[in-house]
């Protein structure tokens, strides 16, 4: 089943929406009054980038990008955990 | 290709350069396993000494083979012909340097046994030590300029870590930090230079690079991709800056006195004697073998030579003057390194065969004498526990043999005949006179005289002045493990000086010739590259 034409027309529209969302997230990262605000925005941005990579997989028709999405999701989680640990205990190891 | 190799050498002899580097790296890989099995530090020390000895034997065999054959020996890794794969290309020049590196590494490995007796964590020291040897030999042997980047990093990373080996010493950590930050900047600059070279030439092989300037078509890579004139100008500027940093030439010398003074003395001997030579070797290889006699970049080449010459002159004067005012014995010797690197750069900057000969001989002589000085100074520091020259006064009386060797090394570097560094300085005078501008000779004589005065003062303080009472109690004496390597190097100093005519005729001049001989360097590579489709 050939879905190329549909995707080629439709995906750029979705890309535009996602890019708009990215801009808003970046505004929050830059503005963010506290560290947790920034971390939250970076979080959302990373998860959205994972989706974006998935969409690029469809757009470029290369199957090799998708593994990057998984890695990105994990890295964002680490950021959260480390900031939380720092605020709770002020020492990473224990 | 196999016919070409088999007719001259058997496969094991052909793979000697690759083996030498890989074996010292394997030594570094297995040492952590050994330290888990046995906690006996004698075992680690003997293990390291054995590995360095093995590598030394391999490099000697390689050097004699290369001198016997006369042509550069090309070893293809994985069997891939040059522009595609990586090659080690050993001619007489880097064969000779490889021998210098591995011999001094072996002596320092023995010296470290006694010198580090009060330190903990020596297993990491020896691991990094073997890594440093692999890195330096790789830098010397490689025929691929991206591989050169990787090997420089191997050398550099182990050097940073070794400078910071005594990690509770404030000065050592600060020096290592400075060295590492600017060293990383320099290597990134070299990576940028590689980008320009790959962009404009489309190859990563050094011999192929030389052929591209002369518009000779090579299999697979073909002709240059961009305009080589400008691309190579950028390459030379970036690469030269980074090599000058590694070699501690004048504007980039600032890290050297700190790092070399703060490291353990055995490591200072390696850093001053050998690691800075990596930068010098790279400069010599690029300026003399690869960029010579090609009209495409002749003007850039001339400018680069001039820059090296000017940098050499300024570092010679700077090193000599700052050497005179030092109060710290190791800083004094470290500034002497800047001075001597300046001499080597002057020799290379002349652009004549005579100058290159003087530089080659001075590389060998300086490596031997400087390792000697640092190791002897390390012996004093090991017993006295201080680096201040005033506090060390008279300590030489308790260690007569070490001090005798120290005096030989110091006078050699100060240029007293018939010791070895005098011979190479004499060649340098000759090379400068051959340029026809006689006042230039002053740039060799003046720093030499200042250095002589500084050494004289040092020797006077250490040997002639009376010994304070606190040392008399400490039972200071010549320890065979500390003195042995020093004495061997002192004998080498004398032999290299007395036998200079023989050595120059049979080793140094052929080595210099093969440095200048770009055609056989490229032919050796082309012969194998013909196999490619």
């Amino acid at each position, binding site marked *: 089943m050939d879905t190329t034409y549909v995707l080629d027309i439709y995906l750029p529209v979705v890309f535009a929406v996602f890019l708009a969302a990215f801009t808003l997230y970046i505004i929050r990262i830059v503005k963010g009054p506290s560290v947790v605000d920034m971390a939250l925005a970076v979080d959302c941005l990373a998860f959205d980038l994972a989706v974006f990579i998935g969409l690029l997989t469809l757009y470029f028709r290369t199957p090799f990008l998708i593994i990057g999405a998984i890695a990105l999701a994990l890295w964002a989680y680490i950021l959260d955990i480390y900031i939380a640990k720092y605020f709770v205990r002020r020492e990473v190891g224990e | 290709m196999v016919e070409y190799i088999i007719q001259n050498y058997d496969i094991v002899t052909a793979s000697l350069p690759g083996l030498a580097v890989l074996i010292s790296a394997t030594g570094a890989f297995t040492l952590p396993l050994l330290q888990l099995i046995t906690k006996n530090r004698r075992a680690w020390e003997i293990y390291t000494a054995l590995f360095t000895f093995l590598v030394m034997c391999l490099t000697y065999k390689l050097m004699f083979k290369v001198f016997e054959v006369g042509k550069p020996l090309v070893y293809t890794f994985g069997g891939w012909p040059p522009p595609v794969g990586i090659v080690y290309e050993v001619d007489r020049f880097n064969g000779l340097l490889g021998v210098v590196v591995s011999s001094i590494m072996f002596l320092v490995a023995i010296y470290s046994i006694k010198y580090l007796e009060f330190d903990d964590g020596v297993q990491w020291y020896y691991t990094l030590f073997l890594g440093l040897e692999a890195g330096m030999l790789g830098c010397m042997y490689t025929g691929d300029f991206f591989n050169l980047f990787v090997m420089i990093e191997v050398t550099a990373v182990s050097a940073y870590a070794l400078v*910071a080996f005594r990690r509770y010493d404030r000065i050592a950590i600060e020096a290592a930090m400075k060295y590492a930050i600017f060293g990383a900047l320099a290597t990134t600059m070299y990576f940028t230079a590689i980008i320009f070279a790959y962009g404009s030439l489309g190859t990563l092989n050094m011999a192929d690079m030389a052929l591209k300037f002369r518009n000779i078509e090579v299999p697979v890579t073909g002709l240059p991709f961009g305009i080589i004139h400008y691309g190579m100008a950028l390459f030379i500027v970036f690469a030269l800056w980074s090599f000058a940093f590694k070699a501690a030439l004048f504007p980039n010398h600032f890290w050297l006195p700190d790092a070399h003074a703060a490291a353990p003395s055995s490591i200072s001997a390696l850093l001053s004697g050998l690691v800075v030579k990596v930068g010098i070797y790279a400069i010599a290889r690029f300026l003399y073998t690869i960029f010579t006699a090609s009209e495409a970049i002749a003007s850039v080449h001339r400018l680069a030579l001039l820059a090296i010459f000017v940098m050499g002159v300024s570092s010679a004067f700077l090193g000599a003057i700052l050497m005179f005012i030092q109060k710290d014995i190791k800083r004094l010797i470290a500034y002497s390194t800047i001075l001597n690197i300046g001499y080597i750069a002057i020799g290379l900057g002349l652009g004549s065969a005579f100058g290159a000969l003087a530089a080659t001989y001075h590389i060998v002589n300086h490596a031997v004498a400087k390792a000697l000085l640092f190791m002897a100074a390390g012996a004093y520091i090991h017993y006295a526990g201080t680096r201040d020259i005033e506090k060390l006064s008279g300590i030489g009386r308790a260690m007569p043999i070490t001090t005798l060797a120290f005096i030989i090394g110091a006078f050699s570097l100060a240029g007293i005949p018939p010791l070895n560094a005098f011979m190479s300085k004499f060649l340098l005078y000759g090379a400068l006179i051959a340029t026809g501008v006689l006042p230039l000779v002053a740039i060799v004589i003046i720093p030499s005289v200042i250095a002589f005065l500084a050494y004289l003062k040092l020797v006077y303080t250490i040997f002639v002045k009376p010994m304070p009472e606190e040392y008399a109690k400490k039972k200071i004496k010549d320890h065979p493990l500390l003195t042995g390597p020093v004495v061997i190097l002192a004998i080498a100093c004398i032999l290299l000086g007395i036998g200079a005519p023989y050595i120059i005729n049979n080793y140094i001049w052929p080595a210099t010739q093969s440095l200048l001989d770009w055609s056989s360097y490229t032919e050796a590579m082309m012969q194998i590259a013909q196999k490619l489709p």
Partner: protein
Amino acid sequence: MKGVKILFIPLMGLVVILIMLILSYGTLGYSPAEYIRSLGEFLLRQSFNVFEKEWWVGSPEVITATLWDYRGLDTVYETTVFYLAVIGCVSVFRLLQPKLAEITKEKEEYALTVIVRVATKIVLAVIILISINIALHGHITPGGGFQAGSAFAIAPLLAIAAFSRYFVEKMGLKINLSHALRSLGLIIIALVALLPLFYFGYLLQNQAKPWSPFPGYPIEVSFLELSGSLFHFDIGEYLNVAMGFLAIFLLLSLPERVFKKDMEVVKSES
């Protein structure tokens, strides 16, 4: 310092403008263009060319093929750089009294909340599986030893923060194990590189060549695609990188009071 600063900015600007002027003459051949350099084309054409086995590597992943076969030496020593850097880190952070680091008391309050702990445990399993997957498929799909090792590195990183470093040590991932496995990985690499020499082949040789008697590493074992030596190299590098990261994180997470206590000895001595 201020004078240097004022001088430095125009200097950098000048250098950048100069480089751009030089580049605008087409120094790099106006790249990127529609065509690429012929060396790159050679690699693309030959690395999985089943019709010309003289020049092939046997891996559809051209990057891994180039990384471990055409330019294998670079990668072996790049691994060495990583290894030596980790050894350097261990050397800088070694303790005078190693016993100080061995006080392992895992307390409830070290860990974060229950929700985080449960989520982390699930994620840990997923991470280790993914990293092994990346390592074992490095010669067929993008990935390989370093990438897989970096993916594995997330596991101790997460466990240290969400639980504590004692949790990681209780799982058996101690620093001595990391030294042993790292050495093991590098010995695998060194042996795979050295083995062809015993068959009178070349160091780091992968496939059979007409000009070398070495028969080559197996491309397939029954149904498994191995791509010759690439698979073994990837495993070696995976062990090295993963365990190197583990050692780095275990050292970094040592609490600061251990070092303060350790440094007191030095101060009292001097």
